[in-house]
């Protein structure tokens, strides 16, 4: 049957955007501030200006690199049953949170505060125990005495320990990734095994418009060597870092992603690269970013369509997003628009469970609500299969016209009533009296209870004790060896 997919633009439009993205790299070029990458690109036929770092990539080179992309991307869980497998024609959609978000809504008193170390663990446990979320991410926590430059490494350790699901993070540098790889190799035993189903993927972004800093290129190249899926996250703020129009912004993101594909595939043919743009617009009244307006949702949808149909890229889209600083009506409106647009455009991964305030604040209660939204989305994506039985032809004939009979006990009803309708987790279908009898709890209250219960009951499968010890030692070493970034 396949996923139920909606198209926002025509075949011809998709083709045009593909062509223009390739042309941008050929005519405008991309700035690559990395000596090794510049040499590599020049050798492959790109025009390189070593003074300005500007690299112009011929269309054929782009096409050649596109052909080198793997047909399938695998992200490993602790056991294979938790693996995430992205391939064209995927019947299902995967979900994840978002690494980032430094502020946190306290689950006990509802107060807004900075995220702390224990939140990372809660987040991992909630992810581990919640149905429908497949990839675990890391809140950017604060801790007294924390060496922030290794926060990603330390957070990774906590995630490895507390979830069996695959992991996504936004690493700070090449060295940091090296420690994470070391932790994984301790678990997998060999690079070969790790490469088959790497335990984590990395978000590594260009700077819009069209610029790759050396640090990011270093990370792209290292990840590629180990087969770690990378998620370049073009983020041309519409009207500031990128064109203001929906399509212009979409196009620039595509071109920027293509440049990541070229760099990655030239260095490591077959390296997995996932399109993970982060569309945002500038609020021209205040200068802040807008992450979840309906126009942003449209950018996401069109980006997904062109990435999928035009380039065959796997996509990871910012779906559960909101500009609201709290979990409220707006946070739900925002994410419902964005999540459904992305899902119906055919995204492989929907991202952002628990995010508020343009991904700066996290609320674990929102995460519980997102579980419901994702489940509804998945249901709708399954779509319908048209045949005589699903049309209920026989049943309609059986019950007849105005006979006084109903469908209630008709075999057709009995056959389908359980499977056709999704069972809600926290939405209520109760009418007022029943709802009052249940304690007049609103959605937030119900979600909060659910997540509290989950955190007290769910115990992630423990990781091997010797491994945990080894991970700890690696983090401690990282803490000593990676000095504060500023003093480098």
């Amino acid at each position: 049957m396949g996923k139920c997919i909606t198209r926002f633009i025509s075949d011809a439009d998709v083709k045009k955007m593909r062509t223009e993205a390739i042309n941008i790299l050929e005519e405008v070029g991309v700035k690559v501030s990395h000596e090794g990458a510049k040499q590599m690109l020049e050798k492959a036929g790109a025009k390189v200006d070593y003074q300005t770092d500007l690299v112009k990539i011929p269309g054929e080179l782009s096409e050649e690199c596109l052909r080198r992309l793997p047909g399938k991307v695998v992200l490993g869980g602790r056991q294979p049953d938790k693996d995430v497998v992205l391939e064209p024609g995927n019947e299902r959609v995967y979900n994840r949170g978002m690494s980032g978000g430094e502020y946190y809504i306290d689950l006990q008193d509802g107060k807004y505060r900075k995220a702390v170390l224990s939140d990372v663990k809660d987040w991992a446990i909630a992810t581990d125990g919640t149905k429908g979320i497949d990839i675990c991410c890391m809140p950017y926590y604060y801790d007294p005495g924390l060496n922030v430059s290794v926060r990603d490494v330390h957070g990774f350790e906590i995630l490895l320990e507390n979830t069996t699901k695959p992991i996504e993070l936004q690493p700070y540098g090449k060295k940091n990734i090296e420690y994470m790889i070391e932790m994984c190799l301790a678990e997998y035993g060999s690079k070969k095994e790790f490469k088959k189903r790497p335990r984590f993927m990395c978000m590594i972004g260009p700077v819009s418009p069209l610029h790759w800093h050396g640090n990011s290129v270093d990370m792209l190249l290292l990840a590629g060597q180990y087969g770690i899926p990378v998620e370049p996250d073009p983020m041309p703020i519409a009207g500031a870092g990128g064109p203001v129009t929906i399509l212009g912004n979409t196009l620039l993101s595509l071109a920027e992603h293509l440049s990541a594909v070229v760099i990655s595939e030239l260095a490591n043919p077959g390296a997995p690269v996932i399109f993970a743009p982060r569309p945002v617009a500038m609020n021209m009244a205040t200068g802040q970013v807008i992450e979840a307006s309906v126009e942003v949702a449209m950018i996401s949808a069109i980006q997904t369509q062109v990435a999928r149909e035009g380039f065959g890229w796997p996509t990871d889209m910012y779906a559960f997003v909101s500009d609201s600083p709290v979990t409220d009506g707006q946070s739900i409106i925002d994410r419902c628009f964005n999540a459904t647009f992305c899902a119906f455009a055919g995204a492989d991964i929907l991202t952002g469970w628990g995010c508020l305030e343009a991904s700066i604040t996290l609320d674990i209660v929102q995460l519980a609500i997102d579980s419901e939204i994702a489940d509804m989305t998945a249901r709708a994506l399954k779509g319908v299969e048209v045949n005589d039985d699903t049309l209920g032809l026989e049943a309609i004939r059986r019950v007849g016209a105005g006979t006084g009979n109903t469908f209630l006990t008709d075999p057709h009803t009995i056959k389908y009533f359980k499977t056709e309708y999704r069972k809600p987790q926290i939405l209520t279908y109760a009418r007022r009296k029943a709802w009052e009898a249940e304690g007049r709890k609103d959605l937030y209250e119900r979600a909060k209870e659910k997540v509290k219960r989950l955190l007290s009951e769910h115990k992630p499968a423990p990781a091997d004790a010797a491994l945990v010890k080894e991970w700890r030692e690696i983090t401690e070493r990282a803490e000593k060896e990676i000095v504060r970034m500023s003093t480098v």
Partner: protein
Amino acid sequence: MASIFEEIADAVVKAESEAKVRGLTQKALDEGHPVKKILEDGLVKGMNEIGERWKQGDAFIPEVLLSAEMMRAGIDVVKELIIRDGIKPLGKVVIGTVQGDVHSIGKSLVGMMLQSSGFEVQDLGVDVTVGKFVEVVKAQKPDLLALSALLTTTMPAMEDTIKAVKKEGLKIKTIIGGSPTSQVYATSIGADGYASDAVSAVDKVKELLDLPPEIRFL
């Protein structure tokens, strides 16, 4: 009929073309009006007006920035006379995003706002090393150093930069900003000021340099 000053102010607000602003400014000069008056009642007045509209929510950032470009085009025409008459920018500001951090948009916005408010601004870009800041501050002797950081990991570089600049014994004020920073953090690292956005940054900088809030050009 509108006076030449009103025409200039209007051209800055409408921001149709730099050529128009330049032409009108030249015309005012040719008519023998004093530079100070051309600035105050024309170019700067127009800029103030668009700024005011923006505060009211009637104008948007790109319009404010365009008008600032218009004002600058006009100032270009009278530049030599400004120097001759001893009219100075409000102060000199060096701004940059600290080492390890490539977030540029907030920093650029603050820089542009300061510039359009009458400051001379040198923008060092992003990922600026402590050494570079010190070098520029020593050479240019600005009145104020403005540092931006968007990553928690790069906030310590603000502290390092401020310490290094202070160590040089230079008389300079410092201000920091960027979403993870705060007044508390600013105080803790010895920065003189903090602002949460580009508009309050302008007010704060004026405060730090002992300038009255409404002033533009000395």
